[in-house]
């Protein structure tokens, strides 16, 4: 269909969202989008969900960390923020999400809030609760593998 004249096109805002999960989590765009719409539908209802739009525009997730750009309608950013906060798990993997900032264009959003690419994990052994454990680390974050699952620690815990 012919695109709308400029003055009548919807205005958008772009949320820069940081995503964190367990080291072995695999999350793709589709799964994240689905959870986001579920969260919006459950919190805001169908009309609210439709109003906010909440389309995942770009998505990158690798080795337990990632980032996304979410498009929302201008004026609905508070509701969108609330919906994003209610995403607690994707495909059963717990996720931490944070809105790093909001911009009026995708480009500004990327340049200002995203792009600090995280490195890969480093395999190592650490002494935790008086036993040597397998662990993966990145920067000063360390994920220790225990029989019950991962425990998230930092370098400070091993000094």
């Amino acid at each position, binding site marked *: 269909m012919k695109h709308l004249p400029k003055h009548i096109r919807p205005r958008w805002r772009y949320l820069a969202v940081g995503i*964190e*999960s*367990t080291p072995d989590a695999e999350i793709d765009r589709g799964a994240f989008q689905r959870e986001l719409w579920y969260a919006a539908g*459950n*919190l*805001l209802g169908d009309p609210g969900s439709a109003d906010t739009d909440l389309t995942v525009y770009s998505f990158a997730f690798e080795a337990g960390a990632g980032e996304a750009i979410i498009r929302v309608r201008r004026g609905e950013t*508070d*509701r969108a*923020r*609330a919906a*994003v*906060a*209610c995403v*607690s*798990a994707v495909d059963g993997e*717990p*996720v*931490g*999400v*944070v*809105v790093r900032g909001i911009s009026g264009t995708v480009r500004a959003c990327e340049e200002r809030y995203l792009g600090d690419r995280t490195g890969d994990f480093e395999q190592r052994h650490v002494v935790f609760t008086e036993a040597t454990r397998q662990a993966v680390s990145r920067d*000063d*974050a360390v994920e220790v593998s225990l029989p019950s*699952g*991962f*425990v*998230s*620690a*930092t370098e*400070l*815990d091993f*000094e």
Partner: protein
Amino acid sequence: MTDYYEVVTAYPEGSSTVSRYAKTAAEYGYDGIVVRTREADYDQEAIAKTYDIDVVTGIEIAATNPDSISGSIGNFRADCTLLLVQGGTNASNRYAVEQDRVDVLTRPMAGDGDFNHVLARAATTHGVRIEFDFGPVLRETGGKRVQALRDLRKLRELVEYYGTPYVVSASPTSHLHLRAPRELVAVGEQIGFSADQIERGLAEWGRLAERNRQRADDSFVEPGVRRGRYDEQSPESKREDTK
């Protein structure tokens, strides 16, 4: 500018250590965290220095009958800055709000717990903060979430009417459960709170910690009696100034 605090369940009860919470909370814009796990092992000063965040020692008492809560209050009051009592049964809720030595009654509506005008009034009299637990709102779905929302509304109405002091928390058990203050404000606004209420609830943790630290300070000889000189903030010197 308000200082936002979050109260966290650390390893071994939760799945993240205190330092990891501190790292994430500092990134999210918090000014402090309150540790509610007694068994947690951490170096308060090193964490505060590395991540530039205030770490407050708290202890959460999770007993169901008043006798053992009473015993725990006596045992732990001196060991921590903030003393929390976990609610969730009518007996523990009732007992906690009537104790001056308790700082916060946490998750009063969880499980079989309920709250009413009598408890709200008692909490106001004894200065016990009531916790609004946002955990289920953020992490549950369906019926459980609806019940949690209903309970939060009931609690809010009582707290507003009786002017009961309160705190707000997302009650994380992992650093992945943490949400930034602005996110909590946004969620709160969607479920009927005002932005101001949430901000005050998050800041109240810090205010309480500050008050308790001051009280535990060595300059207090006994309650109400403090060693020191009259300084410029004292009423006498102020009166001099205005003359």
